[in-house]
C-alpha cells in the first residue's frame, strides 16, 4: 500500500495511477448491471478519478471564501456542488450547512407562504396541513 501511496512501484518508477485499482474495481462492481470490466477501463477510471479529485479541489478553492484564509473548507465544496453545473451530481452528498435555528425559520416561512396561497385560491377555507 505504501508503494501505491507514494505513486512508485518497487523499482522506484512513477506509477501511472496512484489510487489502488483493487478498490476502484470494488466500487465499480457495486454498480448494478455491470458484468465485467476490462483492465484498460479500470486504469482509465482510476486515472479519471484522480483528475476529478484535483479538479474538484482546485475549483472549490478558487471559487471559495477560504482563499483569504489559505484553506479549503467543507463549505467551499458544498458551494461548488450547488453552484456549478458540472458538479451538481454531488449536491445530495455535499449539502450546504445552515444553523438549525435558520432552518426552522425557513420552514415556518414556507408554511406561512403556502397557507397564504391556498387562502387566495379557495377564499375563506383553511388548509389542512
Amino acid at each position, binding site marked *: 500500500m505504501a508503494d501505491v501511496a507514494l505513486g512508485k512501484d518497487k523499482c522506484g518508477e512513477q506509477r501511472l495511477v496512484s*489510487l*489502488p485499482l483493487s478498490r476502484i474495481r470494488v466500487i465499480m462492481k457495486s454498480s448494478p448491471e455491470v458484468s465485467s470490466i476490462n483492465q*484498460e477501463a479500470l*486504469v*482509465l*477510471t482510476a486515472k479519471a478519478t484522480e483528475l476529478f479529485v484535483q479538479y474538484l479541489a482546485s475549483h472549490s478553492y478558487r471559487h471559495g471564501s477560504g482563499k483569504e484564509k489559505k484553506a*479549503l*473548507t467543507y463549505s467551499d465544496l458544498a458551494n461548488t456542488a450547488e453552484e456549478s453545473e458540472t458538479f451538481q451530481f454531488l449536491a445530495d452528498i455535499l449539502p450546504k450547512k445552515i444553523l438549525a435555528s435558520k432552518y426552522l425559520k425557513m420552514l415556518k416561512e414556507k408554511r406561512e407562504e403556502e397557507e397564504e396561497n391556498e387562502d387566495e385560491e379557495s377564499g375563506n377555507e383553511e388548509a389542512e396541513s
Partner: protein
Amino acid sequence: MAERPEDLNLPNAVITRIIKEALPDGVNISKEARSAISRAASVFVLYATSCANNFAMKGKRKTLNASDVLSAMEEMEFQRFITPLKEALEAYRREQKGKKEASEQKKKDKDKKTDSEEPDKSRDEDNDEDEERLEEDEQNEEEEVDN
C-alpha cells in the same frame, strides 16, 4: 487496518496527496473537506461506471472497455479529462507491450540456456514463474540466475 470487503472508500493518504498536488503550497485542507472529497470521488466512480456501462450496453457488450469510459467522460461533461486520459491509455498500452516483449525475450534467453539441460516439462514451470514475477512488476534481474 481491518477493511471490510465492501469498503467503498478510497485510501485517505492517497486522496490527500492528490488534493495537495492540485492546490498551491501551504493551503490547509480541513478534515471535513478531505472526507467530503473522498466521498465525492467514490460517487464519481459510480456515476462514471454507470454511464460507461450504458455505452457498453448500446454496443451490445458485457465488458466495459476504455472507449466506454472515454464516452462517459464526454457525457458527464468532463471533456477536459479526455486528452490526459488518452495519453494515460497510450502510456499504459506501451507499458503492457514492453512487459510482454520482456517476457518473450526472457523466454527466448531461457530457451537458449536450458536447451541442452532440462526437459520440456520444467520449461513450462519456468514460464509460469516469469509471468508471476512480471505481474509483481520488474524485479532485480540478478534473481533470475537462481533458476
